[in-house]
């Protein structure tokens, strides 16, 4: 479904991604784990067209997308829940969700999706007229995921959804991610530092170090891998 082939992304003269190749099949949950500064967020931003790769190729469903503008990439059904949630703080919960559906024109279906999202996270329904900036961290993460769902993504990119949240809420968020994948068949690419949780949830995993992919395997295999255990699972 999504194929990154030898992409190289730079910030000015600093190379952040070195020959990154990633394959994601339709319906999968794939995770990308790695330490701080390994290039995980840059990988997502490269897919979304915010920091387009200088070299290499990104293809979605067979057609190249690495030269498209961010809004065209969203239109294709690739949506990101960025690191730090990035809720529009001065907009209400409802307006934030509305922004998620910015490119859609099918009003009736948007309404259905809104109900679906409120079903998924009833707390957001209660908070619908509250400003996004006044929500708690967990609620903001739920809102960020919901905002992305409002675009009816084919591929959902999640950047550290567990960051800064309480263990109980992390559990809840991961369960929802699983539910989204199973119920609507949405493909999920999950970037995480919480390697243990991420590998338990995902079908396959990639390990990134200093801008390079160093390991690729089934998630269950990576969980047993000695190097992964030592570096990321604290075992």
């Amino acid at each position: 479904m999504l194929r990154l082939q030898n992409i190289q992304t730079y910030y000015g003269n600093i190379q952040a991604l070195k020959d990154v190749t990633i394959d994601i099949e339709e319906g999968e949950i794939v995770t990308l784990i790695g330490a701080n500064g390994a290039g995980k967020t840059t990988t997502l931003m490269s897919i979304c067209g915010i920091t387009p790769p200088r070299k290499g190729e990104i293809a979605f469903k067979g057609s190249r997308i690495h030269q498209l503008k961010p809004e065209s990439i969203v239109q294709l059904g690739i949506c990101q829940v960025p690191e730090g949630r990035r809720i529009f703080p001065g907009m209400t919960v409802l307006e934030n969700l509305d922004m998620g559906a910015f490119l859609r024109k099918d009003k009736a279906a948007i309404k259905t999706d809104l109900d679906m999202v409120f079903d998924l996270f009833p707390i957001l329904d209660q908070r619908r007229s509250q400003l996004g900036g006044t929500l708690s961290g967990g609620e903001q993460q739920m809102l960020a995921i919901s905002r992305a769902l409002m675009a009816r993504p084919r591929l959902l990119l999640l950047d550290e959804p567990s960051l800064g949240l309480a263990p109980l809420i992390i559990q809840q968020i991961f369960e929802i991610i699983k539910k989204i994948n199973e119920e609507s068949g949405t493909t999920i690419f999950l970037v995480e530092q919480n390697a243990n949780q991420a590998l338990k949830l995902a079908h396959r995993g990639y390990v990134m170090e200093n801008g390079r992919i160093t390991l690729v395997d089934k998630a269950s295999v990576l969980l047993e891998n000695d190097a992964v255990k030592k570096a990321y699972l604290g075992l």
Partner: protein
Amino acid sequence: MEYFIELFLGGLTRGSIYALIALGYTMVYGIIQLINFAHGEIYMIGAFVAYIVCGVLTIYGFHGVSILIIAGLLAVVYSCAYGYTLEKVAYRPLRNAPRLSPLISAIGMSIFLQNYVLLAQTPDFLPFPALIPDFEFMEPIAHIIGSPELVILVTTLVTMIMLTLLIKYTKIGKAMRATQQDMSMARLVGINVDRVISTTFVIGSALAAIGGVLVASYIGQVNFYIGFLAGVKAFTAAVLGGIGSVPGAVLGGLVLGLTESFAAGYISSDYEDVFAFGLLVLILILRPAGILGRATKQKV
């Protein structure tokens, strides 16, 4: 008491014009953190276009209010075109440059546009016809507020209400707010940020043009240099209210207008600018972010 009301309404009129122009500064600043120093020139161009259109229409035998409306609309169209082009030519290529570069570009465009009008038109002050007639129903209160003041107040009020509705409820308004709050997130939900920025310049230019036409008709003259002082005053109003804040710009404009009016009325008109800028200094000492501005946290 009557003198006080007269000064108050005069200040309100003056302030509403400052507010109208200040909105253009504050909206642009809110989105791209640029102080568009050429904004006053857009105002001046609006007034000039209206002057030319007035001349033409008068030859064809149009009268008063109809001239004002047609001239106003054409001034808005022209100014919008200038505002759009200005952003595209002078600011967009510098989008990722250090913040000082577009600022210098803005000052350059301001000087360029002034001199362009100076060369293309004239360095002289031109008489602008008084297009707003004295309404009959205004006669009983004409000694407190004149018809032109009333027209200015009503026009700016209607314009501001329309702007508020636009920002709050329309798709482009929501996109503008989203872009202002988090530009890269706005791109991630599919907003064409470049288009939003262009639209912001166009809306700001339209407001400036309306201000330009109203003031020119009120004061009765135009000149290539009128954008400078109007720009400085409106910029002051925007900073006073808290730059980046839309209600702040309106409040700042009104506070500035009232201060000037009272200073001129009770002390001396020679001192109105002293009080206006004195107030700015005072506010900046006591509330550096402006009356309604919030201190922004700088992320490192």
